[in-house]
């Protein structure tokens, strides 16, 4: 009997800022129907990183403390964001506040240009990334697929880039696969995570098949009919896409080509048609 093939451990391979992570999926913690569903969905996703934020605390409020206790019980790395920041100054101050409260120098850096599209404000993003990286932050910037911006973010000290698939919360998948493919090809050795716009497990699988190192999503799970099951579906899609990338996809052809052998086809000698 043949020994079983060792399973490909696709989930141990992602390393960000020198840290090996248990999954190629990163998940957001917002918009779940309840704290319990949030916790179960994060567990089901297998994600090793969850995104979190900072918001105003009321007098005598306990909201923040309760949330932090819930997240700490999950035993995952937290990745604070600077969601809602529109200027370099706001982003830097928020980052410094997050580092103190969450006790981590990892940061999902967002500088937002426009409230309707939630388009990254790439000029401010580069400036903030430079200042924060110099201050010791491990910056994971939410950016576009633009190569020149990517270059500047890397020069600023970012070791990971997080290009958007589509605008945050739209669920449209990869809006510009051609440009994302270029980005992937141009930076074969930089960890690239598709952040935002992922609406379905097939979108996540597509990103992984293209060779992206991971996906970060939130709404697609949180707003699913059953978030915990959707988290499982995404985990499987991310694994499937990664294994497919590693296995090597066939090339696309314009013309049909039979997969069944042509040689030995019966009735070849019979005249067809009327």
């Amino acid at each position, binding site marked *: 009997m043949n020994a079983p093939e060792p399973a490909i451990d696709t989930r141990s391979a992602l390393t960000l800022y020198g840290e090996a992570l248990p999954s190629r999926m990163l998940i957001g913690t917002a918009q779940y129907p309840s704290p319990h569903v949030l916790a179960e969905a994060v567990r089901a996703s297998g994600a090793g990183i969850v995104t979190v934020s900072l918001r105003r605390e009321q007098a005598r409020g306990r909201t923040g*403390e309760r949330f932090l206790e819930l997240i700490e019980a999950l035993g995952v790395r937290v990745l604070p964001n600077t969601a809602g920041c529109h200027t370099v100054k706001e982003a830097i101050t928020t980052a410094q506040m997050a580092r103190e409260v969450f006790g981590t120098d990892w940061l999902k850096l967002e500088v937002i240009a426009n409230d309707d599209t939630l388009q990254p404000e790439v000029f401010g993003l580069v400036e903030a990334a430079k200042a924060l990286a110099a201050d010791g932050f491990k910056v994971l910037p939410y950016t576009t697929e633009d190569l020149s911006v990517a270059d500047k973010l890397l020069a600023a000290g970012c070791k990971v880039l997080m290009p958007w698939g589509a605008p945050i919360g739209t669920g449209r998948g990869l809006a510009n696969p051609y440009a994302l493919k270029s980005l992937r090809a141009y930076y074969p050795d930089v960890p690239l995570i598709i952040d*935002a716009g992922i609406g379905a497990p097939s979108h996540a699988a597509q990103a992984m098949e293209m060779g992206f190192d991971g996906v970060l999503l939130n709404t697609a799970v949180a707003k699913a009919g059953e978030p915990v099951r959707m988290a499982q579906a995404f985990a499987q899609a991310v694994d499937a896409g990664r294994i497919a990338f590693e296995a090597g996809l066939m090339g696309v052809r314009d013309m049909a080509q039979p997969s069944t052998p042509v040689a030995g086809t019966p009735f070849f000698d019979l005249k067809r048609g009327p």
Partner: protein
Amino acid sequence: MSVETKSPVDIVVNGEPHGTTAATLAELVHERGLTEQRVATARNGDFVPERERATTELRPGDRIEILSPRHGG
């Protein structure tokens, strides 16, 4: 907390006008019942680390942010 009678200082806390007798940012955090909570503070857009709250005096018109962990995407 300070018990002597002081005239309140008008500041803005988390976007809301607020009169306080707290002399420092640390006293303000205490006044709001958040000393035991993990919160982060900023004054006029600048981060104020926890260790500097006790020496950060409040001035009229100061805009204070007191933030805590939340869900995020």
